[in-house]
């Protein structure tokens, strides 16, 4: 096919563009990106990296301090904290990823549809979103647990619903602005179908801004899900999870052995800060580009 021959130089110029973009990043953003990549790799390759089985408690080695055998010590159940942090990254990162994927896709579709149709459809969707805003994400997740039981599934779906209005509202306002620009009218005159213009031309134009917002949302979703596990309503032990680790180590904190609780708690903060810095960096830059245009 002819596209195969075309794609090669295009790919090259793309890679060149990415390299140039990487060169323009500020140092805080670079550090945050490296941290996220490390945490992500740790979670992905946890089964090969962890020195001990994270679910296997060694009761003769509880609350061990940092040592050669246990790099980050052990918790009250004798679980190796380093192994638990690695394995816990899987549930702790996958959950928010699910929330963001669901809420971004549905939010984008709802927002696009609302702004594209306008009129009473737009007004009605706006009212529905208003009602949804009244349910904070963590509360909706707790309600979902009360109805469907503990675990990761029901809270992730509930939180995806709770985050959807934020994306929908953003996409709606972006689309409403973008819709009035001449290039959209030009596509219309050429006789392209509304679905084609909206999904293939308009959505890519507003996509980067949505992505920046979703990156920030990932951080909030991570906080919410960790809170749920901390309350004992989310991921259940022995499945490792950062929030659940903190919950399990609360008694040790009172005994003056806070290490196994503080480490996952700090890791949550580090990941959320990194995600927020990166998301806001791209959001600000996109906003700046828009202002110049």
């Amino acid at each position, binding site marked *: 096919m002819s596209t195969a021959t075309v794609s090669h130089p295009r790919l090259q110029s793309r890679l060149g563009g990415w390299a140039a973009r990487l060169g323009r990043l500020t140092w805080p953003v670079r550090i945050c990106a490296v941290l996220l990549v490390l945490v992500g790799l740790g979670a992905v390759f946890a089964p090969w990296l962890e020195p001990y089985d994270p679910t296997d408690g060694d009761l003769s080695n509880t609350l061990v301090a940092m040592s050669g055998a246990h790099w980050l010590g052990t918790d009250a159940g004798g679980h190796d904290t380093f192994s638990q942090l690695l394995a816990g990254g899987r549930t702790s990162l996958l959950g928010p990823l699910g929330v963001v994927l669901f809420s971004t896709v549905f939010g984008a579709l709802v927002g696009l549809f609302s702004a594209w149709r306008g009129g009473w459809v737009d007004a009605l969707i706006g009212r529905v979103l208003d009602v949804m805003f*009244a349910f*904070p994400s963590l509360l909706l997740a*707790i309600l979902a647990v009360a109805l469907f039981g503990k675990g990761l599934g029901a809270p992730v779906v509930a939180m995806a619903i709770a985050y959807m209005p934020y994306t929908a509202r953003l996409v709606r306002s972006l689309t409403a602005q973008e819709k009035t620009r001449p290039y959209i009218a030009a596509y219309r005159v050429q006789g392209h179908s509304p679905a084609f213009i909206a999904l293939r031309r308009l959505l890519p134009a507003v996509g980067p801004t949505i992505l920046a917002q979703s990156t920030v949302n990932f951080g909030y979703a991570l906080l919410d899900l960790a*809170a749920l596990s901390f309350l004992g309503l989310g991921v259940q032990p022995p499945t490792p999870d950062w929030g659940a680790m903190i919950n399990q180590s609360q008694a040790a904190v009172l005994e003056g052995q806070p290490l196994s609780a503080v480490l996952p708690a700090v890791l*949550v*903060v580090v990941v959320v*800060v990194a995600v*927020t810095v990166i998301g806001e960096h791209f959001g600000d830059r996109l906003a700046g580009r828009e202002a110049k245009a």
Partner: protein
Amino acid sequence: MWLRRVGAMALTLLVTSFLVFSSLYLAPGDPVAFLVKGRSPSPDQLAAIRHEYGFDKPFPVRYWDWLTGMLHGDFGQSYQLHASVASVIGSRLPSTLLLVGLSTVLIVVFGVGLGIFGALRKGKGVVVLVTVGAAVPSFTAAIVLRSVFGVRLGWFPTVGTGSGFGDELHHMVLPAVALTITFMALVTRVTRASMLEELGREHVEVVTSRGLSRSTVIRRHVLRNALGPVVTVSGLLISGLLVSTAIVESAFGMNGVGSLLVTSVDHMDFPVVQAIVLLVVATFVVVNTVVDLVYPLIDPRVRAA
């Protein structure tokens, strides 16, 4: 304007109450079986539950009975605690209100204060503080505060609610701080951004060139104009603050409405869960309607528009 806003509020409350009520029917299986899950009720109790939820009546009638009951302060019976939901929540409400009130004072005072400070100083310190602060969840703050100020230094008690007002307040310090950090960071961020925007406006240049002192300019011509967005965002934060009491109260072993929500989910005490969810959502809706109505008093330009 007033009538329309209050009407919209009533409609939103009605819709949310319907959603919370009908959520029971989303649970898999027979709603009655779900309500008694984890317990082995006698046939009498089962009949009482059927009667209380009116499962013999059609769905709209059930909803209407539930709604009118609530408007009279009847939230049904708790299964776990063998008391009316209203009395269970009522007995825990003062402690939670004190916690939320204390935290609100801290959020407003330090959030707005830091925001003003961050807007007037050129340094990046406040920005870093806000970015990190917004990412510190209340459970992380709780763990660190307990570990440092409770266990290591022994300045504050680490668990419980305390008795007597002074003791209660002493018990409340660490939880209130833990609850405050995230929300304070968000209020600081909005205050700073809003102040910076106002500082760049022409009217500020004009009054400065007319020789008004810096503090008068800031107080009368910048801060006053900048407070609008701060009030709006504070209203939106209220629901998150209320839900976060669940985390803080559980972390510090306090007997409040938030920890009641968690234990009720744990014990599948659905009537209590339903009532607390509805209270939080209703508070959010009412507070934000009040904010909308009060807004023109803060910023008369809105009324003109």
